[in-house]
């Protein structure tokens, strides 16, 4: 049976510390990234997304030494994002043992990057990461630079463009739901998943197994979670965790 993927997302600040944000702000330290990857490896997670959220801010490329350390520990598919601006960045990251590379800010700043990257590396290697924020009137807008800058486009048109350019997947992040564990933005998932043929990874807001189930009914091909897999309990104590086999059976039922 084909199973929908459920993917932990790890955020790294300055590469050596694992953090979790809320609405893309207030990073809380949650531990050592390599150690977290080892735990997720033992838990046999479906896939892992690893994002360096300080790379673009610090105007630097990916930290290859560190990515290699993480990739060597990963016996599941690994997607890296953060500071990817050129084809050479992508080549360098793939060489470390990473399967997929997420592009976010550079979609806006280097308009032909996705197309060229998909031609060179194959679509399945290229993930378009799209951060979306709702304005006061309830309209959705795409943001780049870790949510700081609006590109004045709606997510549906933006998603159609990256799909036409050859992206293999879309990672769709709701900035408003990030870290809240209050459920995905289902309306956003439905809009985007209906607009494109490529898989959409829903991200932002997961807090319980039912949230994944709902995201899948709205057309998501995979769902990602950060806070849910690094925190436990009301007071958000740090504990690296993943779904049980029973949870999976329930979600896929």
């Amino acid at each position, binding site marked *: 049976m084909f199973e929908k993927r459920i993917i932990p997302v790890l955020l790294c600040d300055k590469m050596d510390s694992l953090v979790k944000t809320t609405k893309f702000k207030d990073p809380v330290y949650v531990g050592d990234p390599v150690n977290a990857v080892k735990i997720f490896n033992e838990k046999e997670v479906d896939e892992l997304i690893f994002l360096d959220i300080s790379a673009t801010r610090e105007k630097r490329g990916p930290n290859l030494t560190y990515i290699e350390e993480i990739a060597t520990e990963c016996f599941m598919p690994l997607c890296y994002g953060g500071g990817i601006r050129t084809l050479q960045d992508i080549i360098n990251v793939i060489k470390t043992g990473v399967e997929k590379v997420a592009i976010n800010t550079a979609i806006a700043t280097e308009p032909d990057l996705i197309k060229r990257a998909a031609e060179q590396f194959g679509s*399945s290697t290229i993930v378009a990461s799209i951060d979306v924020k709702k304005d006061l009137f309830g309209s959705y807008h795409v943001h780049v630079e870790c949510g700081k800058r609006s590109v004045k486009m709606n997510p549906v048109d933006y998603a159609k463009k990256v799909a036409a350019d050859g992206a293999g*997947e879309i990672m769709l992040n709701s900035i408003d739901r990030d870290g809240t564990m209050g459920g995905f933005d289902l309306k956003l998932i439905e809009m985007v998943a209906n607009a494109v043929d490529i898989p959409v990874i829903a991200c932002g807001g997961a807090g319980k197994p039912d949230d994944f189930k709902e995201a899948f009914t709205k057309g998501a091909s995979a769902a990602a979670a950060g806070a849910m897999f690094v925190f436990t309990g009301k007071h958000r104590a740090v504990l690296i965790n993943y779904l049980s086999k029973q949870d999976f059976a329930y979600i896929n039922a």
Partner: protein
Amino acid sequence: MITIVNYGMGNLGSIANMLRRIGHDSIITSDPAKIAEATKIILPGVGAFDTGMQSLHDMGLIDILNKKIIEEKVPVLGICLGMQLMTDGSDEGQLQGLGWIKGRFAKFVFGEGLQQYKVPHMGWNQLQIAKPSRLLEGYEETPRFYFVHSYYFKPETNDDILAKTNYGIEYTSAFEHENIVGVQFHPEKSHKYGMNLLKNFAEKY
């Protein structure tokens, strides 16, 4: 020595990483002289069919591969695109495949009622074992693997089918013919299921 053929297509480090984890050394090379010494060959790869065949041509690897596989009968494992290149060809491209296994690849096309199946087939799926093999022995539960592909194999004969997978349709996800084995999925990215498969290839072939 297990020799991983580097013809410029995709991520080879992860195969070497997993082999190392299960206690087997390997080398990654595009040098025909080194491939000539191989006792086992892994033909990996991610990407488009024609790009892959063209790279094998351009890097001068076709003759040495044919010699090792067809004449010397050295065991070879094709993974993903590597498996595809072992066959006659694919609807994805114009170029002839290596032709070691009879059959071609066709694109997943899902019509009315099957639109929930997106292309590529990307994610974890199960194998239904079609016949006993050294490659797929030792699993206590139904083995599951990570897949990423848009084209599926249509063999000319059913004799070589090791396992099938269901994604909207049932198709051949692993084959074996004499010293040649091919898998559509990625053992190197499939946790203990992949480790068992690579261990079988390293130790039982």
